[in-house]
């Protein structure tokens, strides 16, 4: 344990100036299942961090921990610390709603609200107290533009979002997240439910977003991780096996298991 702490301090020191999330010796259990084991990790500002690993290794769990969405499972227990911009988010006094306003999330399956396109995007600003119609209009347009979907939906803003195609829905969900101007965006396999063309569009979008946002993306698709991310963490059985520059991790993995995984020997 003391060793881990030492490493930890070093890592923290190395990345300190632009670290957004700092995860320290974090453990998570679903009831008896030990789903995350002594995870140490830091997420940097305006970078894309990819999380890869075989099914069930804890990728989604880790991602959902960053905005405390994981708490929705009643049996969850945790230990360790997670700092978001130096505040410990696991602290009871830290309101999840505040955290989630800063840390947006995009899900695997597009999950627009059963409302109009406009209302979907305006939902976030509205609950956060923006009522002015003109401001809302501006936010909606800007978010949809930023999500590269404005041209496709500008004539059907009043229509139900369920009428859009899967790829459009997913970009709408991203626009919805952008509308509250988060600091970080978490994405859990955002393209796995999409066809190749939609996937391409969303990938392009993610790379554009990097200019303004910090992004953590979970993906099954190693090519995708290699293509778009700056740094990559490889999870296995709830542990972080390797965490490094994407290029280094894919070209020169330091752990045998990482190599086995990225060469497709399992998973």
């Amino acid at each position, binding site marked *: 344990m003391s060793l881990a702490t030492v490493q930890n301090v070093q890592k923290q020191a190395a990345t300190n100036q632009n670290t957004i999330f700092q995860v320290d010796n974090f453990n998570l259990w679903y009831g008896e299942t030990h789903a995350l084991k002594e995870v140490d990790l830091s997420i940097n500002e305006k970078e894309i961090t990819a999380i890869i690993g075989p099914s069930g290794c804890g990728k989604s769990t880790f991602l959902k921990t960053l*905005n405390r969405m994981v708490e929705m499972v009643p049996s969850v227990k945790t230990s360790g610390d997670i700092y978001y911009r130096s505040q410990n988010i696991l602290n009871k006094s830290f309101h999840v709603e505040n955290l989630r*306003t800063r840390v947006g*999330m995009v899900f695997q*399956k597009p999950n627009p*609200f059963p409302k109009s396109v406009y209302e979907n995007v305006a939902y*976030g600003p509205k609950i956060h107290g923006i009522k002015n119609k003109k401001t809302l209009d501006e936010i909606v347009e800007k978010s949809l533009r930023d999500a590269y979907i404005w041209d496709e939906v500008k004539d059907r803003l009043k229509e139900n979002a*369920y009428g859009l195609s899967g790829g459009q829905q997913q970009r709408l969900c991203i626009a919805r997240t952008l509308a*509250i101007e988060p600091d970080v965006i978490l994405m859990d396999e955002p393209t796995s439910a999409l066809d190749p063309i939609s996937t391409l569009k969303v990938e392009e979008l993610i790379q554009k977003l990097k200019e303004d946002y910090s992004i953590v993306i979970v993906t099954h698709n190693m090519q995708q991780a290699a293509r778009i991310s700056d740094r990559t963490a490889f999870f296995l059985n709830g542990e972080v096996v390797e965490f490094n520059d994407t290029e280094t991790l894919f070209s020169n993995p330091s752990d045998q298991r990482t190599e086995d995984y990225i060469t497709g020997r399992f998973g």
Partner: protein
Amino acid sequence: MTSDSQSKQNTLNVQELIQQKKSKKSLSAKFEKLIPSILFLFAMISILTTIGIIYTLFSETIEFFKTVPISDFFTGTTLKPLSQNPEFGIFPLINGTIMSSLIAMLVAGPIGIMAAIYLSEYASDKARRTLKPLLEVLAGIPTIVYGFFAFTFVTPILRSIWPAVDATNILSPGIVMGVMIIPMIASLSEDAMSSVPNSIREGAFALGATKLESTFKVVIPGALSGIIASFILGISRAIGETMIVTIASGSSKNFTFDVTESMQTMTAYIVEVAGGEAPAGSTIYFSLYAVAMTLFVFTLLMNLLARYVSRKFREEY
């Protein structure tokens, strides 16, 4: 090339046995042929019930309209069936029915939906598993017991708070009926709300919404038609409810909107007139059917409407 060419070295040849038995089985085979017809007859009973209901109500109602003009019945605001110059306006009864159902829904609607919200959105699994069946006990209490409770307990309490309330009034049975309907609305609305996919809730939470905001702005709009259907079914139930109003609301055929007064519902009128096993052939006797017909049509429309609304809702996701 028939089947028995098997060259198994069995001491026991089951297939042979089966073939032997088969020749004897013709009797039970005949019986089997009859079964669909027998079951068909059973199934026809429910159809016959409907035909029976509609036929009795219709034919006697027509008799009624031979003595009382249909327009008098549906537009009349006085009901004096027993008087020397009887008047048969159904309005007081419709008014009483609507008043009692309205009060019931004012109680059951908000409480039921709030309970549904709690059970579906806030309660832990364990809390839901204990609370829901307990709540449903309410729906299993015989209505006569509620009637007794309304008359001997709720009315006196109401009167001590609000002296204007009469000993028999529409308020008390309305409230108690509402309590009886709570589990129905809570349970159906909860079903509708739980069928809103979790991913949509998560979408709201991920934007920093509180539970309250996700509930009111996302879940309820998504479950709206299910919730509306539960309300309509609740109203239908209230319209058809009999004993609570019969006992606690008296038999005044008042046409009033004052909830502190006694009013009669369609159902209570039927009990009053039929209570003495109404003399066959008299106008009063036929009025029973005309009122019952109206009641039947009311509830039927409500049920059809509820089904239409909830079917629409199922298509949504």
